[in-house]
């Protein structure tokens, strides 16, 4: 009897719970990405030396990181809401291509930019409607969108790179997207959007509901949360972010190719997973996913600098993805169990 009471006190007792919470405050879900990034950074610094540090300051590489990051913001928000978007890579390419096509057709950069964002919002709405009304898993719906928009990229480019109309490379908006005023503008976009969306996710009604519909949509619905509306917003944000990132890419490169953004959806999802976003929804953070994106980019560049053939990167992404999922699940259940003891 005494033993049971002691155990009971330990289970629900105040001090027991507070202690374990206190201990576990050090173990955050993002720990894998943070530790991994630091370790890999040191590893590459030692292996490559000064070239590595130089590499990190090369604008084009930072731009790629930032573009993946912006896309990852939308993807992480959507995964937290309990859905997937496989179409972001294709949409990235399509948005970049359309941006150039519209400007070549005589629209101003601002008009083109706004039109592409509106198009992306419609794509998000389309993905959301098929998923939520049609009750088709978002994985399948957005896989369809992935093919549709990749096909449209081929159509738009006719298989050849298309370039930004001459004279527009010094346009303010084009520079704001892909240029550099005093630091890479893409990094500023990434920074600002990360702060804004982290705030939205953790401090607003929408954010609270996004976590709720991803964690347990039935409970959320029973409490009066408009589940479909929240998920629709998340789909739209995901598409718009991908389109923005795609326009940042073409603005920076000055051209769009058929492979623009190809398989980037996998990098975005992998970044989320590595950064502690639970694939089943309801758990994660945007900053964690961004650290994940930085880590993946570092691997890709580090491998190249070490002289490894570029295709190893894909293999590495796969391995890191699996390790990420395993540690996520491990850390999560450990935290749960820990808090119970």
């Amino acid at each position, binding site marked *: 009897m005494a033993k049971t009471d002691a155990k009971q006190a330990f*289970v*629900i*007792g*105040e001090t027991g*719970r*507070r202690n374990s*919470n206190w201990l576990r405050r050090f173990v955050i879900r993002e720990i894998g990405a943070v530790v991994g990034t630091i370790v890999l950074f040191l590893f590459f610094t030692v292996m490559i030396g000064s070239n590595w540090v130089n590499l990190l300051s090369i604008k084009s590489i930072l731009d790629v990181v930032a573009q993946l990051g912006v896309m990852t913001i939308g993807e992480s928000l959507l995964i937290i809401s309990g859905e997937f978007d496989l179409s972001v890579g294709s949409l990235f390419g399509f948005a970049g291509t359309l941006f150039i096509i519209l400007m070549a057709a005589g629209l101003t950069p601002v008009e083109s930019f706004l039109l592409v964002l509106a198009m992306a919002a419609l794509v998000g709405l389309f993905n959301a409607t098929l998923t939520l009304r049609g009750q088709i898993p978002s994985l399948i719906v957005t896989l369809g969108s992935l093919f549709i928009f990749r096909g449209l990229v081929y159509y738009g480019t006719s298989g050849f790179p298309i370039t930004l109309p001459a004279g527009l490379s010094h346009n303010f908006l084009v520079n704001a997207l892909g240029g550099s005023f005093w630091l890479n503008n893409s990094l500023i976009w990434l920074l600002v959007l990360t702060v804004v969306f982290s*705030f*939205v996710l953790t*401090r*607003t*009604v*929408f*954010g*609270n*509901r996004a*976590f*709720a519909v*991803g*964690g*347990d949509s*039935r*409970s*959320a*619905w*029973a*409490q*009066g*949360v408009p589940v479909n509306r929240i998920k629709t917003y998340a789909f739209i944000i995901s598409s718009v972010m991908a389109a923005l990132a795609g326009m940042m890419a073409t603005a920076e490169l000055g051209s769009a190719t058929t492979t623009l953004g190809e398989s980037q959806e996998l990098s975005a999802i992998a970044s989320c997973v590595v950064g502690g976003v*639970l694939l089943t929804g*309801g*758990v994660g953070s945007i900053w964690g996913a961004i650290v994940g994106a930085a880590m993946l980019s570092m691997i890709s560049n580090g491998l190249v600098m070490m002289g490894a053939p570029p295709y190893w990167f894909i293999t590495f992404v796969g391995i890191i993805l699996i390790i990420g999922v395993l540690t996520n699940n491990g850390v999560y259940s450990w935290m*749960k169990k820990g*808090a*119970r003891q």
Partner: protein
Amino acid sequence: MNPERGTPVVELRKISKQFGAVQALVDVDFSAYAGEIVALVGDNGAGKSTLIRIIVGIWQPTSGEIFYSGEKHNRIDPRIASRLGIQAVHQDFGLVNTMTIERNVFLGSEPYKAGLLRVLDRKRMIEASKEVLDIIGMRSQITPSSQVATLSGGEIQAIKIGRAVYYKAKLIILDEPTNALSVRERHRVVELTQEIRDRGVGVIFISHDIHQVYGIADRILVMERGRTIGDYVKTEIDVDSLVTLIREGRTGKLNNGSS
């Protein structure tokens, strides 16, 4: 029905519900009053869940009328039901496991500071969580920032009930609230149910455990295959007759006789 108890919080008149060829409810009349625990009993498939889902607006009745505090409402959803003072506590959902208590308490009607972004009023959320924990007497054991996944089944049920009380519910529907709970937690949930009844809240209590139900109910409604076959004030029926009625139904004796 009983004029001295005032207007029922919920009154169902001739409610029927059909799912394709299945007649889930047939002409059910039912009222629930403030400050009373009415138990809903009956075997699986008797229509208990259908009945409460119609009361909270998850499903719409095929025919019949529903009155909330004397006012007729034809089509409602859980959100409207909640505004009308009806709160359901379901056995296996209601709180999002992956979130903290504080973030769950106002889910669906989060308080926010004015503005386009609708920034959460965290201070109010934390204060409300503390109040909910006070209502169920667990303030000293659990902090508002505890994740729901770390709580026990009984604690989760208690928080759902506490939240309903905090929302000033007039009627709380408890659907199998003690399922899968330890004996000790079961006892606590029953105590809590009586506490909220004594606060003047109406309670509909659904359970398979007839003896438990008989222990706490003021009134007992027995259902069988979509129909109500008995509506008893507890003093009118003893527990053995109740068990017999549920087991054999209204037609039970006849069937036994013929076989």
